[in-house]
């Protein structure tokens, strides 16, 4: 099944402050778009706006041709979910319960189940009965990514999933992104680590002051990674 999530001239506001000034972007199902930029440029706000977690938006987002709108849970049910940057596990639930609550939100016949999640993240299988709040940072990050995949979304947004993680965990997250893409999920990845972005990304969008100012295809980015790096360096 093909499809795409399309951001059309998206503006977003927190109170009176306009944070996004017309974001335009299209991410196809089964591809990875990396959203890059310095801190405070609007990357996280772009993801939160798509989930309906900002005060107000203008412009529109189309998800497989249908306008994405309404409260956050409705947007999730339409097929998009978010892995936020601060590892929001359900701390008082066990690892198993964290996974089960997500699986219960997916269609009954959805392909990706808890066994598939444990296959990607075997460490979670060893921690099933442990309270999620007592996991290490890396394990919590694995859990929130697995949980997001378990709702069987069409599109998944990851906000700096490898920040502060040890290399083994970064590798696990990279593999999970590959698996999600292989399953036809469209991914928007906000990432500070350029090597990871270059390893998984199909398209690269640079954000500055609430807008996408440049975009690169994978071929362009691999041919000239220094050009991207320059754009991500404080001058």
């Amino acid at each position: 099944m093909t499809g795409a999530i399309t951001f059309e001239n998206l503006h977003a506001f927190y109170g009176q402050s306009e944070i996004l000034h017309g974001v335009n972007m299209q991410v196809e199902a089964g591809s990875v778009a990396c959203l890059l930029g310095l801190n405070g440029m609007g990357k996280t706000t772009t993801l939160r706006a798509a989930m309906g977690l900002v005060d107000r938006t203008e412009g529109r987002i189309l998800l497989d041709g249908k306008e994405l709108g309404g409260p956050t849970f409705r947007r999730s049910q339409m097929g998009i979910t978010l892995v936020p940057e601060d590892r929001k596990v359900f701390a008082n639930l066990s690892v198993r319960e964290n996974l089960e609550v997500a699986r219960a939100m997916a269609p009954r016949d959805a392909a990706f189940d808890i066994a598939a999640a444990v296959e990607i993240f075997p460490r979670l299988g060893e921690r099933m009965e442990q309270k999620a709040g007592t996991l290490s940072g890396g394990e919590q990050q694995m859990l929130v990514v697995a949980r997001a995949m378990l709702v069987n979304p069409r599109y998944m947004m990851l906000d700096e999933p490898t920040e502060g993680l040890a290399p083994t965990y970064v590798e696990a997250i990279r593999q999970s992104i590959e698996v999600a893409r292989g399953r036809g999920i469209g991914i928007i990845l906000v990432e500070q680590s350029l090597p990871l972005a270059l390893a998984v990304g199909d398209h690269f969008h640079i954000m500055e002051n609430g807008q996408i100012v440049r975009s690169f295809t994978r071929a362009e980015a691999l041919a000239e990674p220094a050009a991207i790096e320059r754009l991500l360096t404080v001058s």
Partner: protein
Amino acid sequence: MLAASLAVNGVVLGSVLLMCSLGLTLIYGVGRIVNFAHGALFSLGAMAGVWLSGAGLPFWLTLILAPLGVGLVGVVLDWAILARIRHRPMVDSLLLTFGLALLITGVLYELGGRNVQILPVPSQLEGIVSVGGLTLPIYRIFVSLLAVALTAALLLFLRNSTWGLRVRAANDDPEMGACLGIDRGRLMHSVVGISAALAAAAGVAGAPIFTAFATVGDKILILAFMTVILGGLGSLRGAVVAAYAVGLIIVFGEGYFGGQLALMALFLLVMAMLIKWPRGFFGEGRTE
């Protein structure tokens, strides 16, 4: 002997507080609403018990119908009023539910709640039993067992059902729950309904002990808030332990030092907890 008798009364009060506090902490946890109307729902339950009993219904039927009716009132209140301020700052919910409490109390005043009324103990539960030289009123044992049974049923349901899993997930992090597709609004209708029913069950069961009048729930509300703070906002097992702790502190304090001193001791404890351990007994409460 006095101590044993006070302990029994402390457990009874703790049981009643437990039925109110679990609802209070769930409503806060899932909806981030500080429900000042919870005490009024307790009063409504007690008064409904008196009305239904006055209409000739047997106690047992009253004990079922009054919580069902008040539970329905809870669902309607959430759907019609609380849902409108779901995304507003917590202070708005505090003021709104305070107004709701005054409104419900005012209606109860007009419907006969000015006078203290007593719901008679059902004949099957009259009398006392002697255990090891201690005489215990059967009805008070019944109230404690009822509270424990209802609490255990709720906790089991929360632990083993999909509904419970969603409630506990939203209790931990409502925003993340929504990102996974959990409809917090619909969940809240059921949470407020069940919480209101539990408060009403406490009101009916407590009416033969604490009597029934328009503001009978006011003191219970204050003690239930103390319970929820001691247990940690949003912590269910914290509320269980704290309910009995508060019940025993109040009853022992009243027995040995007088009612005002007992309350002062409790407030001091709550203040110390808020300053030193704001997350409650098990460290799993919320602090925002």
